[in-house]
């Protein structure tokens, strides 16, 4: 457990972190019938959409206010014009204005502008504003911030306490994770609101969305305050859980991850308590299979050096399992924001930095885990890479992989162990030849 170091240098070389704008966009892509409107120049939207589309193999509808040179210097009513243009053929339940670094640098009075718009256009849907400029961290931070703004602006005062529970999911959770999670919750017959639920990005081939499609509606957000409790998955989402507790008196349970034996056990125990039901037999079987798999795989993993460059919540989830439960060593970790969880990560060598810093730290690593951009490091160092995180543009279906629960952990473990198996096979083949 080391102290989180921040690399001090001028600028970045091969940045690892992505913009809060991307995180906030992804978060809002988990709320049904939302109109996502980026406030800034059109390039921010195009570049962000490119990454999302490449990762999910799916179109995510996002619009832009397309600030031009004159609007940039003089200011203007681009938001009004954009909203007006879009509402001509769409009827969203919610409008989310996500600001870019450009407009935040200029210091626009966006709140004031929104007030005018509300009166002038007589909107019959709420409109929220999320500051997603690059100054406030990375995509994981932007994701959590968007959900916090959503809850703070939309949720109603508590009117009653229902049997429902809130589940907060973090930036690094995949569509596969969400689908697995929903399956588990349904098996406990737990009435739930998953915030946000991005699983619809896993694909649908027969409708052409003009707005976001998700299982979570605006009414679900309004009544978050009535829920019995919140389960918060991932440190980045704690702020939202705390908000729900402070303002609406909804207690929360916190799990930094639901990957690996310890955390999945805790998660199932929690669900048993909340539902008053025992877990189904299939989960006992799944746990047995996971334990057996761990025994099968440990021959290939114990004391192996691995390095990871990824967002903090996923970094913790994967490294805790690999190091504390499988006995590998985490040689170096590079992450994207100064999350509180960073200090819990099982290595002395952890930085907030870019992929150049990551490259410099690799001395004995036999495997790296990172997103698509880690490919360059892998090629340069000639070390195999396992892709996880966001974005993954050079693999199909990775957004459907799951890393959570007994089953997700098992699949992840086999993926990793097979890489080491390949290395050993190759070495012994060379000997034979």
């Amino acid at each position: 457990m080391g102290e989180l170091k921040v690399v001090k240098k001028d600028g970045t070389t091969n940045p690892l972190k992505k913009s809060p704008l991307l995180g906030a966009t992804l978060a809002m892509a988990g709320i049904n019938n939302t109109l996502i409107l980026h406030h800034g120049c059109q390039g921010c939207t195009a570049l962000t959409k490119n990454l999302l589309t490449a990762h999910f193999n799916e179109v995510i509808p996002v619009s832009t206010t397309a600030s031009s040179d004159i609007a940039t210097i003089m200011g203007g009513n681009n938001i009004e014009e954009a909203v007006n243009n879009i509402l001509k053929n769409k009827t969203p339940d919610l409008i989310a204005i996500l600001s870019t670094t450009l407009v935040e640098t200029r210091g626009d009075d966006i709140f004031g502008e929104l007030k005018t718009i509300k009166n002038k256009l007589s909107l019959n849907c709420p409109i929220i504003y999320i500051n997603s400029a690059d100054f406030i961290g990375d995509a994981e931070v932007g994701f959590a911030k968007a959900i916090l703004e959503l809850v703070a602006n939309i949720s109603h005062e508590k009117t009653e306490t229902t049997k429902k529970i809130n589940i907060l999911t973090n930036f690094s959770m995949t569509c596969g994770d969400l689908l697995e999670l929903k399956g588990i919750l349904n098996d406990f017959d737990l009435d739930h609101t998953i915030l946000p639920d991005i699983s619809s990005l896993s694909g649908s081939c027969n409708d052409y969305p003009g707005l976001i499609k998700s299982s979570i509606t605006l009414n679900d957000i309004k009544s978050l305050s009535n829920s019995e409790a919140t389960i918060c998955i991932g440190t980045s989402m704690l702020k939202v859980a705390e908000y729900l507790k402070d303002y609406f008196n909804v207690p929360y349970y916190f799990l930094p991850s639901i990957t690996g034996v310890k955390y999945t056990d805790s998660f199932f125990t929690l669900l048993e308590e909340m539902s008053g039901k025992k877990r189904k037999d299939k989960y006992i079987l799944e746990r047995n299979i996971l334990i057996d798999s761990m025994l099968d795989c440990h021959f290939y993993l114990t004391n192996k050096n691995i390095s990871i460059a990824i967002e903090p919540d996923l970094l913790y989830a994967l490294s805790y399992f690999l190091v504390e439960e499988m006995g590998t060593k985490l040689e170096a970790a590079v992450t994207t924001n100064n999350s509180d969880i960073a200090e819990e990560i099982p290595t002395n060598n952890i930085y907030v930095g870019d992929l150049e810093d990551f490259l410099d730290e690799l001395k004995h690593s036999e495997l790296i885990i990172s997103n698509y951009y880690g490919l360059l490091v892998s090629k340069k160092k000639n070390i195999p890479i396992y892709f996880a995180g966001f974005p993954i543009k050079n693999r199909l279906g990775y957004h459907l992989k799951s890393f959570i629960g007994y089953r997700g952990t098992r699949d992840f473990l086999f993926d990793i162990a097979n890489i080491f198996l390949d290395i050993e096979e190759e070495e012994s083949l060379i000997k034979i030849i």
Partner: protein
Amino acid sequence: MIKANKELFNEPDCSINKAKEAKERIKGCSKPVPGKASGGCAFDGAQIVLYPIADCAHIVHGPNLCCSHSYFTRGTRTTYKEPLYNYGFSTDLAETDIIFGAEKKLLNKINYVNDHFKPRAIFVYSTCVSAMIGEDIDRICKEAKDRLNIPVIPVDSPGFIGKKNYGNKLAGEALLKHVIGTGKPHNTTKRDICLIGEYNIAGEIWNIMPLFDELGIRVLSKITGDSTFDELTYGHYAKCSVVICSQALLSLARKLKEQFNIPYIQGSFYSMKEIKKTLLNIADELQDKPLRKDILDLTKRKEVETYKKIVPYAEKLKDKKVFIYSGGVKSWSFVYLLEELGLEVIGTSTRKSTDEDIEHLKAYFEGKQKILMEQGDGIKILELMQKHNADLLLAGGRNRYTSIKGMYPFVDINQERLHAYSGYKGIIRLAKDIYNEFSSPVFKIARGPF
């Protein structure tokens, strides 16, 4: 720093511009519409043009997003061993930089990149934020250039200044101002040309180069696909420049003509008809009679070969109905190409097309019922395909998911395309890709009852 170059907005040789009324023309290139705009910004456009120069480093003076969302994504290919465009260098502007300025930071970054990566030259891009806070990148680049003794070139390309297309022009402008005209080739020949506006996406240029080689035409300077810095510096020694499928870099060609007296032609290497025409135009421009004959011989031979090679695919392609959603030169050159392959083109789009492009199409389609679609979205395209019983969609990557939603076979012909469709080799490749699409059993299952 923020100054839109009026001339670039108002390219006199641009036929979109020529066709406008004088009053409209003053407004220049069209501005993005809030809520409707899509596509990249000027910064993105400038990068697309300059990134292929493989031995140069590209530093983005802006906040994190500009670089981190755009590096290591371009489809350009190079023969250069370790292309520096795989690296994303950024000053990653923070709030304190906005308040105190970041010129020192930029200078340090330039020094760092020079020391660690030894680039042949460095391009420095301004972005919305750095332009707005008034960072003087021209001065810093000059300072760095004097100290480091390598070219350090400012590219004034803040995103808000225009669309991607305008950024292409700004990049051309930077090349003209700082690069072209600064070098000298070892020797010159009377068949030296320069290619403008071909970025070697998916290796397209490699399908064309063998033709030039065989004809003894020397491509002195490639702007900028599969290029390195030095060949750009002496581009002005070419005897003729060829603008490929590009409205954006027309300004560059025109200025080369004005400053260095290099005539230019516009051409395309999609379809046998266009390849032949473009090559012949080059011969005419070079006033080279023997070359003309060689071209006729070569294209004749290649056409016979090509038709022979597409035979295995021909049966499945014959009379299938295809809709093309692409702009500019591609809107018509792909019509020729597909008809050469035996498909029936039911229509094409005319977005980004010039009047000249549209005239091409109208003349070609004369007397037939064809669709000329202006700007459309995915839903409109699908409606149209359904109405006309289309079998295939040819469009850019953005419409890949349109085709998937409608469960139509699809081939990508834009930036993210997987394969090169230029040259004769490209024609065969396209035939194969379309054949594969029609052979897939997936569509039947996907559409079938459940």
